[in-house]
């Protein structure tokens, strides 16, 4: 303790004075970055299954044309809450869990800079998730008409007219937003102030760089979303007319405000993944990461560009031609820094001594499938083509290639890569490979047909459809159920790994490189109390 007095004073929190508590109080009151990271990741996994169950109900309804299982109102609630749960309660908390576990280990810091805010940031999440899903349960008892049924985009005027589920969603988004902002501030302060001596910004691990850009995007755009849903709330209950044309407002304004947040949100979800993928590729190719600087500059370029392209989400809402052209070209321009990242990923593997452990398989699956998301995104960015593809299943397929193959499979890459470090045990390679192949095959089985459905003109967010779409929908539903149930292997493998297994070495992977691999597996409850010096 005497060797690192400043940290103790800085955080106002005496690590060693605190007795190690077990039980519920440990988790409620913990300020330890590893505990909080574990809670974030566990919460994300639980919500991943809840959001997945919702969409399996949707896919079951879409298995055949006609209405078999549910009414359109309930269908609409499921698709909207599925998206909100997956984005805000699964993908974002998983990335924050990674940040909590890994950033202090990777930059040689003893903990996050603001441990109490860290605890608060996590414990805001369960009430927010409860608020979002509570209307489903209330409706069972005849209270209200169910959860938010506008889709996750909450477009006005539908959301102005909607039932009380919209209010629950608004308050849930407020709380989730506060949680994200607290988490982001913590990460920025940690990276700026707690790096090990000698670790300059250009020696920062790429994962930390990716998260740093994400954190800045979050604090710049989440408040705009908070403002937009606040306007929605006052329009609904307090007689304002932000989005009400009769009172001089404009419903299209909501789309601008929403997507000013919503487009950077895509990169908020993906930048932490782009940060961790190079570490995995380098490890299993036994080579240093190729093009570190190029990747850092690409992260920054993508972060900046992401806030100036939002209107490509609603080209068809009506815009003057110069605005259409601007948003089209600026959107397409993002593919340049993104292509730099792709080339760096491939070049990292180039002529490497590659082995194909589960994390490497997921990383490579990520590159291929996320590449498809990028290519189909270029098609959607084309104003002329977008008139055809807009609001069709093509869009659904595109963003699931981006957010499932890009986001969720990226998270799985990270979990498999770091799990032995966190638990001290190796997971089952066999189960990991089964999980990978089942996921990749069933993912494509689910979403590849949706590209064709979209091209054939099937609109999204519709519980019933014309007969000519029946075959592709049936295939997609079969794929979705295999995909959903394959994730039980993932959960079981994690559970087994936490409980026991082959002891992991400190370095875990032969080619691993970075500060976190110098610590024991699992790392001690308090690590890097004496900071390493980077030469």
């Amino acid at each position: 303790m005497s060797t690192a007095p400043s940290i103790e004073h800085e955080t106002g929190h005496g690590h060693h004075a605190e007795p190690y508590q077990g039980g519920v109080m440990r988790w409620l009151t913990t300020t330890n970055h590893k505990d909080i990271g574990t809670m974030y990741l566990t919460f994300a996994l639980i919500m991943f299954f809840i959001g997945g169950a919702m969409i399996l109900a949707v896919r079951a309804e879409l298995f055949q044309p006609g209405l078999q299982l549910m009414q359109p109102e309930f269908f609409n609630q499921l698709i909207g809450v599925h998206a909100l749960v997956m984005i805000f309660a699964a993908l974002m908390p998983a990335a924050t869990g990674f940040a909590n576990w890994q950033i202090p280990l990777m930059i040689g810091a003893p903990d996050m800079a603001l441990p109490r805010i860290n605890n608060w940031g996590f414990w805001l999440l369960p009430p927010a998730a409860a608020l979002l899903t509570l209307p489903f349960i209330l409706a069972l008892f005849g209270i209200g008409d169910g959860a938010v049924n506008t889709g996750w985009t909450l477009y006005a005027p539908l959301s102005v007219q909607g039932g009380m589920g919209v209010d629950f969603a608004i308050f849930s988004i407020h709380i989730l937003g506060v949680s994200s902002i607290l988490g982001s501030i913590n990460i920025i302060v940690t990276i700026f102030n707690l790096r090990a001596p000698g670790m300059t910004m250009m020696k920062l691990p790429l994962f930390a760089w990716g998260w740093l850009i994400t954190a800045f995007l979050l604090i710049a755009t989440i408040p705009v979303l908070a403002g937009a849903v606040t306007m929605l709330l006052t329009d609904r209950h307090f007689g304002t007319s932000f989005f009400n044309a009769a009172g001089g407002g404009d419903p299209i304004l909501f789309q601008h405000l929403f997507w000013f947040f919503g487009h950077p949100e895509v990169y908020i979800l993906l930048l932490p993944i782009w940060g961790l993928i190079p570490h995995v590729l380098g490890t299993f190719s036994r080579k240093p990461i190729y093009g570190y600087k190029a990747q850092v500059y690409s992260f920054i370029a993508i972060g900046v560009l992401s806030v100036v392209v939002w209107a490509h989400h609603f080209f068809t809402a009506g815009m003057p031609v110069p605005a259409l052209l601007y948003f089209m070209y600026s959107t397409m321009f993002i593919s340049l820094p993104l292509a730099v990242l792709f080339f760096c990923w491939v070049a990292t593997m180039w002529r490497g001594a590659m082995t194909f452990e589960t994390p490497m398989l997921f990383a490579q699956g990520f590159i291929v499938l996320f590449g498809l998301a990028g290519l189909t995104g270029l098609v959607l960015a084309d104003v002329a083509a977008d008139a055809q593809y807009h609001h069709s299943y093509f869009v659904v397929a595109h963003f699931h290639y981006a957010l499932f193959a890009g986001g969720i499979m990226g998270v799985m890459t990270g979990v498999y890569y770091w799990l032995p470090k966190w638990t001290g045990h190796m997971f089952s390679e066999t189960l990991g490979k089964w999980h990978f192949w089942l996921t990749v095959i069933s993912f494509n089985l689910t979403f590849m047909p949706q590209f064709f459905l979209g091209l054939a003109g099937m609109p999204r967010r519709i519980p019933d459809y014309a007969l000519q779409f029946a075959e592709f929908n049936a295939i997609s539903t079969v794929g979705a159920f295999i995909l959903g149930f394959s994730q039980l292997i993932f959960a079981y493998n994690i559970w087994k790994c936490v409980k026991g297994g082959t002891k992991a070495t400190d370095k875990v992977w032969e080619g691993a490189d970075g500060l976190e691999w110098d610590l024991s597996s699992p790392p001690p409850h308090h690590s890097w109390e004496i900071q390493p010096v980077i030469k």
Partner: protein
Amino acid sequence: MMENGIARNDAPLPMRNNRALVVKLLLVVAAAFAFGFALVPLYDVLCAATGFNGKTSQGKLGVGGISGPAAAPSRIDATRIVTVEFTGTVMPGLPWEMRPLTTSLDLHPGELHQAKFLVHNSSDRAIVGQAVPSVSPGQAAQHFEKLDCFCFSQQTLAPGETKELPLTFIVKPEIDESIRTVTLSYAFFNVDGQK
């Protein structure tokens, strides 16, 4: 434990001011929140300047595109004809019926014309409504000038009352030559209980 490139550092951690950085970042958050609200008036200005979204506000900038009367231009461009189509809808929550008495007009840009809409209150109570105009294509909006319009003020209809609502307008000669047809659409909203 410590490998090449990493040595033990026994010096205390450098004191850095976390609080100052947190305060700065919170200011960014506050600024972003304020920016969200600042986008509301900015958006109106942008729409008025570009005709984006079919808003017909020009000259005097009205709230949400409901503009005040503007001065008549002097020149008439007799070399071309523009077709103006009229349509109207009644939004949910307003028990009115509405249809244009003039459905379409062929005119030379710069000419002064009048069109009429028929509005009927089919309920048994007096209701106040507000019409909100929209012009498409959007580029035509800034050249569509309303000299007098029932949309400039709220309209009250007695139970069962039928009313003819007039509109006086000019399509300005500056309108782009590629535009042959302009559609003016009104949406009537129930504004009872507002304001």
